[in-house]
């Protein structure tokens, strides 16, 4: 088989996995640490995407726009956590309802501000030729970014005092409070970190996936599957889930058809969750 074809297939597979991982890591952090199901996660990504697009169109360098997008969605996360989530930590169903309502509001607010269709960004960085095939450089960047995202989360978790407290609160918030941790502040911070990654993902993927107010609704299903299949340990589980699910979908799409790829991902997720209800890698929470 043509080696160039194999390379381009491999890049395509890794890109699909990277996209899924980038979209999921923020939600995985929040779900893994505090058990919160944020149904507005797709819209957080969308807000990040819009932020990056608008900033870049205002001549802010793209890389900076992405970072600022992450920051802005982190702030949004703080606001949402303080107003909505903090009352619902032990009421997961109500939390889903509340965040579902939030997602509808966010979609409509963005539509009111920017209309249903808005000019997007072109995919930067061009492409390189390998044999008779070309590979987009941005695909490679996304793959690297996904790896970096997981590394950053690990760094936060294991290498910072904040991360240490977050782990403590996730394991046993009562005990952490008794030992002097301001648990409500840590909760807000954890939610903000997850939101920041959602915003960063939105910014990075804005050129690749395009921006529209309802863009979140297109991938939220797969993201949920990835987070649940990954389990509470998002450092190991979520990348594994993204790899297995994203990889399966990509391979089936390439060799059979895109519809079967999508179906395959969902079917595989169902099977895994059936036999491993806690996901691939159990986390800190009991």
């Amino acid at each position: 088989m043509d080696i160039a074809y194999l390379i381009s297939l491999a890049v395509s597979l890794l890109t699909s996995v990277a996209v899924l991982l980038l979209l999921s890591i923020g939600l995985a952090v929040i779900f893994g640490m505090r058990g919160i199901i944020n149904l507005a996660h797709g819209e957080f990504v969308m807000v990040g995407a819009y932020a990056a697009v608008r900033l870049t169109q205002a001549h802010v360098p793209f890389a900076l726009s992405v970072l600022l997008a992450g920051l802005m969605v982190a702030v949004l996360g703080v606001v949402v956590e303080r107003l909505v989530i903090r009352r619902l930590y032990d009421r997961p169903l109500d939390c889903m309802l509340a965040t579902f309502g939030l997602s509808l509001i966010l979609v409509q607010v963005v539509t009111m501000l920017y209309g249903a269709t808005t000019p997007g960004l072109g995919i930067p960085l061009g492409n390189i030729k390998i044999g008779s095939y070309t590979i987009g450089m941005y695909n490679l960047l996304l793959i690297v970014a996904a790896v970096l995202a997981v590394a950053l989360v690990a760094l936060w978790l294991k290498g910072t005092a904040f991360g240490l407290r977050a782990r403590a609160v996730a394991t046993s918030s009562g005990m952490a409070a008794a030992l002097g941790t301001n648990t409500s502040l840590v909760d807000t911070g954890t939610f903000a970190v997850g939101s920041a990654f959602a915003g960063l993902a939105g910014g990075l993927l804005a050129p690749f996936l395009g921006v529209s107010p309802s863009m979140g609704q297109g991938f939220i299903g797969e993201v949920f599957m990835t987070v649940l299949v990954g389990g509470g340990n998002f450092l190991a589980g979520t990348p594994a889930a993204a790899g297995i699910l994203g990889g399966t979908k990509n391979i089936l799409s390439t060799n059979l058809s895109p519809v079967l790829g999508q179906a395959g991902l969902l079917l595989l997720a169902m099977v895994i969750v059936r036999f491993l209800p806690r996901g691939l890698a159990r986390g800190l929470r009991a």
Partner: protein
Amino acid sequence: MVHPWVNAQHRRRAKVLFSIAVVVVLAALVAGCGGSSGSSSGSASTSSSSGGGNEEATGGEPIKVASVLDETGELEGYGKPMSQAARLAIESINEEGGVLGREVELENLDTRSDPAQTTTVAREVARNPDISMVMGGITSASREAIRPIFDAAEKLYFYPVLYEGGVCDKDTFIQGDTPSQQLEPLLKWAVEHGKNKWYVLAANYNFGQISAEWVETYAKKFGAEIVGGPEFFELTVSDFSSEIPKIQSSGADLIVSLLVGPAQANFYKQWTASGLNKSTTIVSTSFGLGSEQVVLGKSGKGVLSAFPYFEELNTPTNKEFVKKWKEAGYTDTITPGAIADWNAWHLWAEGVEKAGTPEREKVIEALESGVEYTGPEGTVKVDGPTHHVIEPMRLWEDNGEGGFKLIEELTPTAEPTFEQSKCNLIEEPNTNQQFTPSE
């Protein structure tokens, strides 16, 4: 555990909560009775400041019509300009004296890109005896869901969007183009320009599937080879990474795109990023309906699309219309769907004037006898026996700057030839089916 109403404080609290509950329920009942789901734009502004009596619609009760479109949700890029065009059309009809001297009252209903909501709204409209005509449905899936509802209620129904062709129904008038009018001249043009290795991409529902059948039919007819696909994608798919290497290895020189919706529009972007847009042409009959050219900017450069209308059409009538659109405060790009919607309202108005009554059977007869309207896209004519329209067809190229460049006037009168060969509702009024190439 102590019973909640054991002491006076608890009793008071219960009373307060109960009264609040009663008020909320009453308020909900009042609000519910007031309107139907979605916004009701009552009588469009009859600017009575124009003074002269013959500018206003004054004679008799208003004629009620309904517009059922996805103004929010995934499909709002399609639905919002169309509903704006509907409002503008009704306003403009009323400003010119209404229909038969009567004002037209538009009920604008949003189906939120939700199939369940679409059927609910359609049933409500069908149940309402005062509504003389309903225009709407965007995706072919929603059209086929609501068409039987309107048939059963004997409601006159207009469908204003390009589609996969073949619908033959006495109560339905199609204002959108069929493959005979769009795909066929587009693919013929492509073959004449040396593109005969085709790769087909389509949205995975009836429009994409049947249109893909048509592409296969035309490939045989024009001697082209389908080297890949038809590949079908769910409307939510936005990551085409798995497709790019496949298209690259197929040796295709033409990509036929029947992709629909904002998520699938990312294909064009990812294709451009792969650099292969230089060696492969993309043609489409759906590109531009949702203002994809605006969203894609330079990533859309070079995509060829066949539609009767884009905002860039350089005629005095259209320049007037664009001015009117902007003066109404609409900032969205005028899409082909918006113009089809505009045309349809005017054709219906002509039909009612000719019939002398908004009553369904008489209007159908009048429309079947041949009604025409000249508007921003040119002259549009109802094709009596098929209930479709004969209208101009043009070839456009995305200029990479959020707009289109007119490449060629393919024909001033594109006819629905397949439908004409299968469907004659004047001679066989009881026909009610959709014809596809495989029948």
